[in-house]
């Protein structure tokens, strides 16, 4: 909302400078976004006096002038205006000036005569329409005075970023009312006179020309109309154009401009119809059709065709719709140069209905903007009368006697019982009833003291009809607070009960994972929840995989962000591709976030929180102590093992993923992470085809863990175990087994043996060897077994037999051979 100070001054004295005024408005809730000076373009335009004027030697219509531009300087200027004469005070644009239309003034020669500037017409300076000659400044001036100050043209335009609750300030009068309450001494707005001059009254009565019927009073509680005869449609007077242009509205013709002017002035949108295009002298306010009817095609006055739903409210004549109520008029009844009889509409429409229509049609007009926020239900007549009287004056029209005022649904006045005590509790203040009354009175709330004798006596507050945002005592507390000043309210601190509280477990778990992962050298990524619709296809995931149940966004921002992710994989792969494209080839990324699975139409999706991690590139770079070595599956597995051991989760099995369950893993390079039958997650190497689909040029290894399962797998409590008192002994054993034998299964066998046996404390694989000397389809595996007793120091004799038994069991179970 733009307001110009000169326009505001018609309703309220404004003496503050624009900066100070902006600050006060901002701190009262009307945030001023910017202040522009309206006449900045008049820089380098000064008052000058023509000292001498003589005929141009080479051009009949030109005059060579000598112009006093101030401080005794005389400039030669060639002028083409017929009215130039010696002694005349003129508006002179000096070299350097830039006039409207990006017209730059320079020193030049015209037909051989020097000209160091330009004498300007009012039209050239956008000050009036007169282009017939240069401005003849009336009065005594000091030459060289900037034109802006000589003509007192200073005007500032404030751009106010209004919150949606303040439609009353979508008007000059509304803003003026606020200014009146924010300046000292407080002032009340002066409203324009809207009485019709008797000389302008026509003998004819509006009721003989038009009737109004409201078929849907809930959607149109009030419809008022006035009528003018002998209207001369033409350009608006300059003052009116200036007003509208200053606040950013474009001018059309005097009739339309006046409706816009009154809308800006009062906040009430108006519409003017060409009466002669209203069929059967009837205005009917009704919906476009009955429910279920086909959409109606309608052309608005901007020549656009809209399809209208049957429930949209229309203004119709005796035959057809002539306007979309409160949104935009129709082309079929707009004001043209040929219009002579004008019907002016000023109505109150249901805000929700207008908003729905504006949203559905995509029309955001100045009218719908105001109606959907709520105009003053009692402001219709005032605005109508204002428009009619202006049209009588500036369109040389006569006014029909009588007005139409259909008001089937009255908007009751709002009265609020306000408890000063409750208000003070809410704000943390100690205002007296009188202080509250005074503050509210400054913005035209009416106050009756209901029970003034008592301390907590209620105040009965009558809310002015234009304040559609105020309905309850709490709303009044805001009025009092903002007008008093938020920053003058004393800061205090709430008292709270020191009662035990439990921390939510999930944020704690998340924090620990982040701690562990950053400790492992991973950077935390945050990817968008939205991904491409073809994300599943890119990961080779097919129906009936759960991950194909993606939630689609109805109004996505782009195809790249069309659905909610069902997997953390694509985001991490995309992040990897972005990094490697920038020559960062070693990455350790992790992310904690939700994935979403569609459940049923119209239902919230299932949200599952996961943690994912990705590694690619090199275990370490080329250094003085090692060669560059690429990461592999076991680097990733080590991270997962490290993370799980960080949480003391033991007994985890890594099982080969079944075909089809994780198709984005390279076949034979994927595993499920399982604890007590519960799948915690997966890990594996990204299949080359999938990598290619994501634009990856190197191997990627990725894990994901389900946070709910991880939380379930956490040990309930940690119980310390005493440290051993006696030394251990280690024995190694090496077997040659067929390649297909999985180490995990052999370890399971050792584990089972150890549990039964009791003296085996630890066992691990420490060497894997493959080579032609042991056979192409064989591998050599070496295990170390650590023996310890809780009650004595073990000797070779204590363990010899056990070690042999274990060795024999492996030989038997796995067709293993001993080396050599």
């Amino acid at each position, binding site marked *: 909302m733009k307001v110009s100070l000169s326009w505001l001054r018609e309703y309220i004295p404004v003496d503050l400078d624009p900066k100070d005024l902006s600050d006060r408005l901002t701190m009262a809730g009307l945030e001023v976004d910017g202040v522009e000076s309206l006449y900045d373009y008049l820089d380098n335009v000064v008052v000058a006096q023509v000292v001498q004027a003589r005929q141009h030697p080479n051009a009949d219509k030109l005059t060579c002038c000598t112009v006093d531009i101030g401080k005794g300087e005389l400039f030669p200027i060639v002028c083409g205006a017929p009215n130039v004469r010696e002694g005349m005070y003129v508006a002179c644009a000096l070299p350097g000036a830039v006039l409207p239309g990006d017209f730059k003034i320079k020193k030049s020669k015209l037909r051989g005569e020097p000209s160091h500037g330009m004498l300007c017409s009012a039209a050239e300076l956008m000050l009036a329409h007169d282009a017939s000659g240069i401005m003849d400044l009336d009065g005594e001036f000091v030459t060289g005075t900037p034109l802006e100050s000589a003509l007192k043209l200073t005007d500032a335009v404030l751009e106010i970023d209004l919150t949606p609750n303040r439609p009353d300030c979508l008007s000059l009068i509304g803003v003026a009312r606020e200014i009146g309450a924010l300046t000292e001494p407080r002032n009340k707005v002066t409203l324009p006179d809207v009485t019709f001059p008797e000389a302008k009254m026509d003998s004819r009565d509006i009721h003989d020309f038009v009737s109004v019927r409201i078929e849907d009073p809930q959607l149109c509680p009030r419809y008022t109309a006035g009528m003018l005869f002998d209207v001369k449609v033409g350009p608006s007077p300059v003052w009116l154009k200036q007003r509208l242009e200053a606040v950013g509205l474009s001018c059309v013709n005097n009739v339309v401009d006046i409706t816009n002017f009154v809308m800006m002035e009062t906040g009430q949108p108006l519409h003017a119809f060409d009466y002669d295009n209203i069929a059967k002298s009837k205005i009917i306010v009704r919906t476009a059709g009955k429910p279920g009817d086909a959409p109606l095609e309608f052309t608005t006055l901007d020549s656009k065709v809209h399809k209208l739903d049957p429930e949209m409210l229309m203004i119709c004549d005796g035959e057809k719709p002539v306007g979309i109520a409160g949104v935009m008029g129709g082309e079929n009844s707009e004001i043209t140069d040929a219009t002579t009889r004008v019907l002016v509409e000023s109505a109150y429409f249901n805000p929700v209905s207008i908003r729905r229509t504006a949203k559905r049609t995509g029309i955001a007009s100045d009218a719908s903007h105001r109606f959907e926020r709520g105009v003053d239900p009692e402001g219709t007549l005032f605005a109508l009368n204002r428009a009619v009287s202006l049209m009588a004056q500036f369109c040389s029209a006569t006014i029909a006697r009588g007005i139409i005022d259909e008001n089937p649904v009255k908007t009751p006045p709002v009265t609020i019982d306000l408890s000063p005590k409750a208000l003070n509790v809410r704000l943390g203040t100690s205002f007296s009833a009188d202080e509250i009354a005074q503050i509210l009175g400054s913005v035209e709330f009416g106050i009756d003291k209901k029970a003034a004798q008592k301390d907590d006596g209620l105040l009965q507050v009558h809310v002015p009809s234009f304040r559609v945002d105020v309905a309850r005592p709490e709303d009044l507390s805001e009025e009092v607070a903002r007008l008093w000043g938020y920053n003058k*309210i004393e800061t205090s601190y*709430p008292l709270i009960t020191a009662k035990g509280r439990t921390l939510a477990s999930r944020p704690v778990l998340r924090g620990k994972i982040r701690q562990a992962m950053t400790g492992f050298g991973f950077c935390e990524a945050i990817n968008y929840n939205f991904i491409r619709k073809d994300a599943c296809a890119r990961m080779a995931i097919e129906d009936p995989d759960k991950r194909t149940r993606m939630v689609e966004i109805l109004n996505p921002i782009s195809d790249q962000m069309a659905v909610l992710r069902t997997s953390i994989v694509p985001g991490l792969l995309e992040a990897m591709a972005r990094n490697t494209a920038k020559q960062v080839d070693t990455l350790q990324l992790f992310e904690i976030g939700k994935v979403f699975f569609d459940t049923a139409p119209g239902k919230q999706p299932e949200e599952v929180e996961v943690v994912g991690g990705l590694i690619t590139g090199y275990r370490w770079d080329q250094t003085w102590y090692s060669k560059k070595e690429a990461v592999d599956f076991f680097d990733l597995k080590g991270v997962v093992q490290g993370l799980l051991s960080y949480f003391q989760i033991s007994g985890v099995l890594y099982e080969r993923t079944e075909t089809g369950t994780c198709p984005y893993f390279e076949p034979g390079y994927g595993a499920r992470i399982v604890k007590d039958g519960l799948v915690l997650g997966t890990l594996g190497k990204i299949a080359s085809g999938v990598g290619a689909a994501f634009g990856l040029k190197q191997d990627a290894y990725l894990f994901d863990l389900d946070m709910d399962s991880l939380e379930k797998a956490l040990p309930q409590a940690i119980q310390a175990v005493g440290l051993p008192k006696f030394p251990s002994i280690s024995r190694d054993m090496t077997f040659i087994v067929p390649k297909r034998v999985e180490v995990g299964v052999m370890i399971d066998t050792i584990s089972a043996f150890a549990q039964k046996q009791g003296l085996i404390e630890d066992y691990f694989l420490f060497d894997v060897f493959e080579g032609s000397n042991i056979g192409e389809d064989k591998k050599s595996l070496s295990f170390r077994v650590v023996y310890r007793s809780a009650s004595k120091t073990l000797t070779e004799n204590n363990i010899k037999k056990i070690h042999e038994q274990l060795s024999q069991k492996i030989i038997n179970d796995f067709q293993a051979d001993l080396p050599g």
Partner: protein
Amino acid sequence: MQNNLQDIEKQALEKISTADSKDALESISVQFLGRKGVLTAFLRNIPSLPVDERPAAGKNGNLLKLKLEEAVRQARSELEAGAAGGAEGIDITLPGRMVKKGALHPITQVMDEISGIFLRLGFDIAEGPEVETDYYNFEALNIPKYHPARDMQDTFYVSENIVLRTHTSGSQPRVMEKNEPPVRIISPGKVFRCDSDLTHTPMFHQVEGLMVDRNISFGDLKGVLTTFVQQFFDKDTLLRFRPSFFPFTEPSAEVDIRCAMCKGKGCRVCSNTGWIEILGSGMVHPAVFENVGYDTQKYTGFAFGMGMERVAMLKYGIDDIRKYFENDVRFLGQF
């Protein structure tokens, strides 16, 4: 005899102290301490001395031997230190086998820090679904359908009544429905708005908070948020509360902090206002309490919310909001 020892000492120490290489030092050592060295000759000569001189000569001779040996050792290590730049055995300036350094996302860091401040003030964390019903995201918070306030938040729809939450405030009615006051919660999390340009990403992070109890006032709101701002930014940060509008609060206030870049003089960062908007807040609207069945006569409360991306931008001087979600490790590694 004694004179002789003193001469040896003087000569030897002078030569040792002026030796300019290990080789030179070695030959000096041989000259005095070697098998055929001067001092060795002196010691060997002791049996030929008169009996009463022998003990003193032996003792002094051996003391001098120790002294010279020590002097040589010291001179040698000084020479080595000079040659190797101070290293003994290894070059400690070789790069270490550095452990890889990870990094938390800057958004996580500010979110944790902010959560920490409120946890210390006695708030709990309440999280809710990221895909929310229209009811909890809007209606319960006094934003009916077709209310112009819906324009304040461009919403992603999944179906007519299911939206991607536009703020984390939906957790507030969820918590209040299940708990009587006092309520003190913050809700950190992702939120979504249908907006994408230089200063907006369609997903961003918020921390929102709610405090409900008896006699909670606008003054208390000012106190708690002032505490927060001064803990998070700087203890001397100036702030101001500016009237605004949110459908779920009345009165509503924006909180601006004094621009740290220009100290209030006006600059590009603060759009020449001297102030930077960082928080929205207000006293909970009674309609919100009515929706969850709280007694509006008995309880009052305040709510607030802020965007993490913006706060992190101020804290770390990040200039482009899109960097947060590109996950370029050269960016992530800086925090």
